[in-house]
């Protein structure tokens, strides 16, 4: 079973990298990009075969390591 984790900065946390990407897109002529937020995607191969258990386990992984919940939100997808 595979899982995909999306880690993004919480709303309200300034994202200097996203702001730089937005600026660079503007320089390339892509107008109308109102905001850019940069995050991470983490893919996991799991031995677990039960989707519910896999999701619970990956959620714990996010809380303990994959995301810094002070400044980041995460979303878990079981594939």
């Amino acid at each position: 079973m595979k899982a995909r984790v999306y880690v993004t900065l919480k709303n309200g946390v300034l994202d200097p990298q996203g702001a730089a990407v937005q600026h660079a897109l503007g320089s390339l002529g892509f107008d109308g990009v109102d905001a850019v937020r940069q995050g991470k995607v983490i893919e996991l191969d799991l031995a677990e075969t039960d989707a519910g258990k896999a999701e619970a386990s990956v959620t714990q992984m996010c809380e303990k390591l994959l995301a810094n919940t002070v400044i980041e939100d995460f979303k878990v997808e079981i594939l």
Partner: protein
Amino acid sequence: MRSAVIVFPGSNCDRDMAVALERASGVKAQMVWHKDASLPDGLDVVTIPGGFSFGDYLRCGAIAARSPIMRSIVDFANKGGHVLGVCNGFQVLIEAGLLPGALMRNSGLKFVCKNTEIKVETSNSPFTNAYTKGEKVTYPIAHHDGNYVADASLVERLRGDDRIAFTYMDNPNGSTADIAGILSENRRVLGMMPHPERLNDPELGGVDGNKMFTSLAESLVSA
């Protein structure tokens, strides 16, 4: 003062830290590898040095904060032990939950390597009692992720409890409230981005950094 320096793959200020500790206390610091499960007995202070532990993978300090030795360091701190984290060490202490807030990418996105003037905000701690409150010192910084993030309620709590140890005179990284270093609730854990251990020899530009280590050595005279 019996001290230890924790060494991770990618630490690069560990020897400077050991020299600074030995010069102030007259006792050799013990180097402890991150895979060790326990700290040496009888330590007064554990230091986590600067560097790029585990290549800054995932988030700065995140992997180091989950290494075997960190469980012992958290126990040591919870029992009232003194812990100093500088630069990457500060990032590790935050990732390990020993200090609040977060350290993000510098607001200017660049790695900043220069001397910075910082202000001592409190002399009420074992790390800063040799300084005078309001005193200004110039310490080197060298980091990419030193932008201290704290919400308004945390900043208020840190201020109210006099836990902001140092602030930047000219904020180099976007840190909230110009914060350069903070103390734990019991004032025995200090995390800071500037490097006092890099300023302990006239040949290297000065000895201003000694004050941090003489503060510690005088506070923690071994029985």
